[in-house]
């Protein structure tokens, strides 16, 4: 029983990390039809800037971690907004070129990060409590997972409230459904594009700082490895569906944890098989809309 509880909660923690990356990916694709392969770079930059903030303040305190998270989110949003404005917007409706430019940016930014911060992992110092465990139903859960789950839940809540109760949220929800009709109502949907990129980048930047808490280090490749699973989550959940991204993040991460434990470390394989099964049975994803 305690093993199952441990796998479930650590799976939720990993799912929280996936969600922070996948939520932005899903919204960006849903509104703009852009597969953003540079999304991992937003996360990596957020992680590095978070670490830079932490080492300049007093490492290992909650205040420092909070400041790192805010800095990571801000830099992620700024990097993402700049990417949309300077690289994606000139290629509007040219999806192949957009994919190529985001792939190029992802490769170039990893090289840039390695040039600035080196190729070796940089180990981070977190508040002491995050290194301890809490016992739940006999399972000793690493406390860092609670931080991840809490932050992801807050991000989900914030995005839902934004989408539900603001004018731009309304534009984004409508744009995901029918972008050209939104423009035909006299709305400049390009502003919503930049905003969605910024929101996705902020979530990814925050995810970068939390990923450094989860893994205990920062490296130039931290975003790339998470991006693969975030894409899988996005496809399984349904491209463009925030709720789908949330549900699929948890399903994928929990499946991964259970398969790793009970099926001889085959978690990654199980996730890929789940992706294949979803694509065969329900190509639009769990909560995505079918293409007419």
């Amino acid at each position, binding site marked *: 029983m305690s093993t199952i509880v441990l796998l479930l909660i650590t799976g939720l923690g990993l799912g929280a990390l996936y969600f922070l990356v996948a939520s932005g990916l899903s919204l960006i694709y849903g509104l703009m039809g852009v597969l953003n392969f540079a999304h991992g770079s937003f996360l990596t930059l957020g992680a590095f800037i978070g670490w830079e903030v932490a080492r300049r303040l007093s490492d290992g305190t909650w205040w420092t971690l909070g400041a790192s998270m805010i800095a990571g989110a801000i830099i992620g949003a700024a990097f993402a907004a700049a990417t949309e404005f300077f690289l994606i917007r000139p290629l509007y409706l040219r999806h192949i070129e957009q994919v190529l430019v985001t792939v190029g940016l992802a490769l170039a930014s990893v090289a840039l990060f390695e040039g600035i911060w080196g190729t070796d992992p940089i180990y981070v110092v977190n508040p002491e409590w995050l290194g301890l465990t809490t016992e739940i139903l006999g399972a000793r859960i690493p406390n860092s997972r609670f931080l991840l789950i809490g932050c992801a839940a807050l991000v989900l809540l914030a995005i839902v409230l934004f989408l539900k109760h603001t004018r731009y949220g309304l534009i984004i929800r409508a744009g995901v459904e*029918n972008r050209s*009709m939104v423009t*035909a109502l006299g*709305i400049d949907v390009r502003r919503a594009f930049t905003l969605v990129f910024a929101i996705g980048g902020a979530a990814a930047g925050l995810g970068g700082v939390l990923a450094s808490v989860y893994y205990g280090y920062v490296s130039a490749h931290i975003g790339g490895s998470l991006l693969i699973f975030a894409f899988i989550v996005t496809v399984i959940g349904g491209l463009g569906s925030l709720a789908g991204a949330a549900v699929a993040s948890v399903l994928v991460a929990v499946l991964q944890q259970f398969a790793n434990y009970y099926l001889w470390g085959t978690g990654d394989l199980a996730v890929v098989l789940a992706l294949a099964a979803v694509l065969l049975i329900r190509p639009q994803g769990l909560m995505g809309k079918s293409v007419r």
Partner: protein
Amino acid sequence: MSENILSVRALRGSIAGQQVVEDVSFDVPSTGVTALLGRNGVGKTSTIKSILGLITRTGEVTFEGRRIDRMPTHKIVQLGIGYVPEDREIFSALTVAENLKLAERDAAPNREFIDELFPDLVQRAAQRAGTLSGGQQQMVSLARALLNTNKLLLVDEPTKGLAPRIVGEVANALETAARTVPILLVEQNLQVIRQLADRVVVLADGRVVFTGEADELLDDEDLITRLLGVHGDSAESSSAESSSAESSSAAAADSSTNEEVSV
């Protein structure tokens, strides 16, 4: 003849490299309803979309004496052009109220006018638009356009697939709107055209082949047959083919009111 609010010259439109509007030129007067007619697939909807910049286009489009053919769609609409698209294109995941809220361009939108014109929508404000009937969805689509003070309305097949009773309601709503705003109307229902149109522009093979007063066309059976491909007499029978499942039973019950043709 009143001054023209919209002038279209040598308009060409294409979708994914395929030419769908060949060389269209016509004017829309600043009062009344101008009907854009033609057989299926001649480029009526594409002409409307070309005017709005929703598809790739070349040529000259002038609105109130100002060139708009290089403007993005949202800027064109902001000039005061309301658009009611073919197939409604309401946002099905949003509520009725959200659909209308999204469409508000003016600081003081005409909510009272809309509430009077479509009282059903007031009661269904919290309902998801995707769960409405076809007729109610058309009301939402019309309300989105009429909510703002427009200088021109582009209305694309507003009665398509609707039951005859709803067709009448839609036509009446447009007739009310036409008292204050000129309308460029794409329509397949001859009875609606008779009720609303002051002037007609007929397209064939992506080009204008006839322009004139509505009566000039509608009173001439031979001209209708030649330009629109139907006899006025056969209009009722052809309506059964083009009507949706929603309207077919109602059309059978009251076919005399449904003079829809496959134009």
